[in-house]
């Protein structure tokens, strides 16, 4: 067991820089999820931890030891790949045992570990099958088994669930979570799926264009996004954004279009251009706060919730509200809603940073 320290980690391919310095200390036994859209460098970062990509700048340390120049096999890590990367010509048993065999482990010990891992993952009856005779979920489990038997310091997951269908994905997500609770092995998990990230991670690293935009526990990231990017990326339906200017006294915002919203904290000098964000579920009926009138364009009843798309009177652009499923609204109606002052997220227009 060991932690992983990333210190100013950079990566560039020739002139093109893809990762611009990531700092993060992953604690012993922690489950950290790297989340971001495609091409943000999250897989590259993971592959640098694995030793499959060279490190252009900065340091990566596993268990306190800098591993920049250490071969993947000597880093004591195990990786689960998106396409599983099982050896097609080896049985499930041999796939799991291969790494141990190379390390010259005694046959009895290999057998014991493979049997244990197969027990945990319920693969016992499949040990003599070939990968092509398995379903996607089973292959996924074998790939995890191959990682478990090594008893590594760190597990690395590279979008391991993307090739599974939706139902299986939910099931495997729970299994990975259970597995981590049981083994308590430090894990780094890369995904573009925010539900996976929120449910699995002790902490998230939200990446965008090679920069770690925010690092923190899932609910903190959801509740206090540090940048406009994080605010828009986390949460579905996405956060609503309106452009505006800070009003007199600095504790209110004039939305383009005329509406004025009160904020609960100082937003800087009057006239500063800001982006105002609020989550769809924070537009509610009744209660204290700013009055907002929403002209309904479209309704999506989801059962438990109803998504209402429309435009705000005195504001520009589309806004989405998530109201309880019991609400009955029709297109063209105007809904009187309120938005609490402490639910407003204010971001500087130019830097995109939270105010």
């Amino acid at each position, binding site marked *: 067991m060991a932690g992983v320290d990333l210190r100013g980690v950079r990566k560039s391919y020739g002139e093109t820089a893809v990762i611009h310095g990531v700092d993060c200390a992953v604690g012993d036994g922690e489950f950290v999820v790297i989340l971001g859209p495609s091409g943000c460098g999250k897989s590259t970062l993971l592959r640098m931890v694995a030793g499959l990509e060279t490190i252009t700048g900065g340091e990566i340390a596993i268990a306190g030891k800098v591993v920049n120049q250490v071969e993947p096999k000597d880093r004591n890590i195990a990786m689960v790949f*998106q396409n*599983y990367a099982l050896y*097609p010509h080896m049985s499930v048993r041999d796939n799991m045992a*291969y790494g141990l065999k*190379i390390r010259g482990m005694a046959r009895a010990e290999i057998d014991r570990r493979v049997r244990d891992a197969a027990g945990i993952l319920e693969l016992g009856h499949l040990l003599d099958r070939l990968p092509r005779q398995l379903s996607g979920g089973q292959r996924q489990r074998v790939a995890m088994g191959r990682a478990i038997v090594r008893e590594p310091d760190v597990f690395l997951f590279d979008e391991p669930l993307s090739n599974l269908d939706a139902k299986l994905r939910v099931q495997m997500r729970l299994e990975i979570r259970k597995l981590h609770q049981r083994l308590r092995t430090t894990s780094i998990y890369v995904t573009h799926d925010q539900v996976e990230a929120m449910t699995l991670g002790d902490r998230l690293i939200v990446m965008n264009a090679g920069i770690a935009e925010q690092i923190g526990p899932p609910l903190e990231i959801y509740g206090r996004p540090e940048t406009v990017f994080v605010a828009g990326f986390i949460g579905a339906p996405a956060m609503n954004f309106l452009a505006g200017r800070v009003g007199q006294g600095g504790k209110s915002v004039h939305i383009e279009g005329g509406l004025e919203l009160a904020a609960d904290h100082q937003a800087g000098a009057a006239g500063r251009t800001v982006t105002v964000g609020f989550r769809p579920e924070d537009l509610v009926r009744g209660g204290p706060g700013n009055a907002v009138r929403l002209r309904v364009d479209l309704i999506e009843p989801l059962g438990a919730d109803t998504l209402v798309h429309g435009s705000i009177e005195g504001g520009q652009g589309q806004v989405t509200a998530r109201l309880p499923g019991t609400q009955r609204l029709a297109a063209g109606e105007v809904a009187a809603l309120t938005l609490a002052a402490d639910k407003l997220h204010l971001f500087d227009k130019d830097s995109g940073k939270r105010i």
Partner: protein
Amino acid sequence: MVERRPILTFFAHATLILGVVMVALPVYVTLIASTHDQARMLQAPVPLLPGDHFLENLVTVLITGLGASQAAPPVGMMLLNSLVMAVTIATGKIAISILSAYAIVYFRFPLRMTFFWMIFITLMLPVEVRILPTFKVVADLGMLNSYAGLTVPLIASATATFLFRQFFLTVPDELLEAARIDGAGPMRFFVDILLPLSRTSIAALFVIQFIYGWNQYLWPLVITTDESFYTIVMGIARMVNVVDAAARWNQVMLAALLAMVPPVIVVVVMQRQFVKGLVETEK
């Protein structure tokens, strides 16, 4: 699809039967000729029914040889020579080209693509084109009349290298990465993972290259003067070229028949793997 067109069916079958007859008839004539004595073979028309001299011919051809008037050693020895040559060429080609393909696909070294193209360009230089310089080299190395001389100049193969390269490119990179994390070094990865995955390609290539080696005519003809290194294909040609006597067609035909057997065996034995190797890439 259900189709009922009797005339079409008739023509389809007629064409196929005609094709079979055209291919099979010469083989049949060869087989029949090998069962007659020489006297019968010199009469017209060519016999189409089996005679009773097959075993006698077989013993003559395989063991005693055709006598001083015939310019060829016993067929048995020539078959053995051909077998050695074909197997050495096929295995040598596979061994060399799989290794060079491995180097070209998986290792980064200076002038990698230059080497690839150099190998590729040799596709344009078959033995027949480079026969004089190659002969000079082999002669200077003292390899005339030896198995080395018969096989080594034919072993380098751009075709096989190219085929293996294409196959390796289809193997997912993650497999290599998984093996690296598992602790397999380059040779371990090659032996434990790449070789088993290439099994069908190897089988397909073996069949092709075995037949290529077996059918070599010009090169053995040039390189051997010692009868004990004659191969069957050139031997048959020599058996026909007799001076001051009639060719012993019954024995020539039997030798031709025997020459067909090993390639057929190789194809039959490896057919399943061969077809698999050409049509599917197992991943």
